[in-house]
């Protein structure tokens, strides 16, 4: 089985065709289909849309509100029974003054609610645009071909730290799965995530457990204490302070007691070097110095923090452990 190299091309082609179609649909929206008919057709579509689909579009939800905002006091009088129409007409005439009084109040209320929702939606849209203009860009994965390979100087040491630990080990960003395969060959139950779209294709080709997912989204869907180890490569190097802190919080929560955190990062010098990966130019943050990890990881609840700088000083490795239950036989059986 081969992964489709042309998938990005197909996606681009399809995106172009759909953009043209969407523009055409918008252009037509301004004329010729009666508003009531269009609302009925929209409602028919939304009736069996998934929960996320219904919740996903405020505009679509408001269209449903609008289409149901008016309560008609003039009930239909069609009937399949002889004389049914006359009876219904009579009942309608007798009750119309009362129904009109009720529906008039309901209609005033529902149109007020609808108007308030539209105002709210407009304000949320406006707020979204303002926030979007000031957002902090997520740090890109810094892909370093010299360090992110199975014969790099730090890999044996990292694999050694993770050998024989009970449970799953997560590698992010996993790329094509080079470290997951290396860990797997060492008997470690490893899997990988990467925001890059090639991860799922690489999984299909190699048979390894790789997924295309943003790391924070992935960790958000992992249960507390579920991971025995986490290896981060290229993830924290260019992350902003806030992003790095949030990531560390998530990792710490998902690591089981006694779990191991391994971080490989470019050093500040390596980050600034002329031959640094191009992603550093897009990064909102800079790498910490090894000493900063030694200072801050204990504050986050880690112990046994070790750092080691690579032979040319351009990158370094951090290994730390979460406190765990003492090994059976050490006499305490208590948390460290």
């Amino acid at each position, binding site marked *: *089985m*081969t*992964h*489709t190299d042309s*998938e990005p*091309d*197909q*996606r681009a*082609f*399809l995106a172009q*065709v*759909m953009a*043209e*179609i*969407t523009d*055409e*649909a*918008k252009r*037509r*929206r301004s004329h010729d*289909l009666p508003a009531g*008919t*269009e609302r009925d*057709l*929209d409602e*028919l*579509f939304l*009736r*069996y*849309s*998934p*929960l*996320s*689909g219904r919740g*996903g579009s405020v505009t*679509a939800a408001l269209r449903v509100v609008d289409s149901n905002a008016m309560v008609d006091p003039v009930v239909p009088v069609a009937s399949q029974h002889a004389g049914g129409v006359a009876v219904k007409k009579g009942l309608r005439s007798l009750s119309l003054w009362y129904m009109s009084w009720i529906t008039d109040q309901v209609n005033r209320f529902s149109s007020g609610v609808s108007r308030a929702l539209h105002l709210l939606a407009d304000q949320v849209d406006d707020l979204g645009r303002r926030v979007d203009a000031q957002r902090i860009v997520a740090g890109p994965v810094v892909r370093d071909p010299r360090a992110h390979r199975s014969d790099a100087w730090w890999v044996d040491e990292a694999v050694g730290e993770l050998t024989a630990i*009970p*449970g*799953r080990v*997560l590698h992010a960003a996993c790329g094509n799965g080079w470290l997951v395969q290396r860990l797997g060959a060492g008997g470690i*139950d490893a*899997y990988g995530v990467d925001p890059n779209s090639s991860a*799922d294709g690489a*999984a*299909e080709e190699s*048979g390894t*457990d790789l*997924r*295309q*997912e943003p790391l924070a989204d*992935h*960790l958000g*869907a*992992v*249960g507390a204490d*579920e*991971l025995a180890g986490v290896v981060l490569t290229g993830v924290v190097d260019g992350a902003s302070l806030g992003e790095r802190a949030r990531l560390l919080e998530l990792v710490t929560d*998902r690591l089981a007691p006694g779990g191991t955190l391994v971080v490989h990062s470019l050093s500040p010098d390596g980050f600034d070097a002329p031959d640094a990966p191009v992603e550093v130019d897009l990064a909102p943050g800079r790498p910490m110095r090894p000493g900063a990890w030694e200072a801050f990881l204990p504050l986050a609840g880690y112990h046994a923090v070790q750092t080691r700088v690579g032979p040319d000083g351009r990158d370094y490795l951090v290994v730390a452990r979460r406190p765990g239950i003492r090994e059976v036989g050490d006499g305490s059986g208590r948390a460290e």
Partner: protein
Amino acid sequence: MKVAFVTPRYGPEVMGGAETAARQLAEHLVADVGFEVEALTTCALDHITWDDVLEPGDSTLHGVTVRRFASTSGRRPEFYALDGRLRVAPAEATMAQARQWVEWNGPVSPDLIDAVAASDADVVAFYPYLYHPTVHGIGRPKGASVLHPAAHDEPALYLPVFRATYGAADAICYHTVAERRLVQRVHPVAAHRQIVLGLGVDAVPGGNRPGAEILGLAGRPYIVSVGRVDEHKGSVMLAEYFRTYKRRRPGPLALALVGPVAARIPDDPDIVVPGVVDEADKADIVHDALVSVSPSALESFSLVVLEAWVQSVPVVVNATCPPTREHCERSGGGLWFGDYRQFEAVLDRLLADEALRRRLGENGQRYVEEHYRWPALIRRYAEFLTGVAGSRRP
């Protein structure tokens, strides 16, 4: 290597997507990789009543040992009122309410649950997540439990009782990346072993009859929608959209809704509803269609989309259905619509542009060849099961 499939219904008479998928995987594991496979199931064929209609006991079907067990209750009448109450805010249901929902949804078969717990299979595969046998059987066998959720974005997925169901799985097998994304959004299972597998498709030889002739359309061009003709599957919406389209674009174009009919479609000279047709006729009908439409928003995989692509027919899918849209986006084999305007614009474009139809169809065919042909797909599945066997989660 021995694998057991646990599914509420099993057999060629069953039309459900999840049950059909389970049977196909089971039979291909026997035929293509030589695994020993058994199916543990009830005596039911109807997923509404779960009535016992088949005899309990063991039989063999295409190399798979089928072990059927009687149920003590099917879907209870009280289920519908409870379902109606809980679906408004399913995540807020109490655990007791959610457990009641599972009991009343059925089928309840204590003998089946006992057989699951006593199974000597290396891996027990549960398919789908939604029913009593999975909820009460998963995690109980000695071998590893693999969950095939077949989930889509429905209220039941959010019921709290299913958190334990997903949590008890040693591994999860998804149909699509979209399904994985959905499940992980609702349940914290991202660290579970997993695979995105999907289902295999075979080329079905047609009878070389013109599709329009089979449909009684006398040479008219047509678009087709294959699958259960059901309001929940979007058939009524598609019929109404097409009627509106034809009022605005008079001409010979027709719509064929092919499959078991569970909804009333208004009589219309431009819409034909032939009901169930045999596989050869279905292949011929799809082959000659200009476009195949999947209007359903509630699919976890959709074989009919892939079957259209086998014949290089472009597809149009519901924009709010993540799995079918994922197929289109990955393959470049189809377009989607999210309202009537877009439906009209998509259809106008496709009908006017033969080169686009051809390109989409060829893209779709290539996608099926690369990802969803049985021999390669079942080998991936067998490797996954072998890796999962003997590795229970702590």
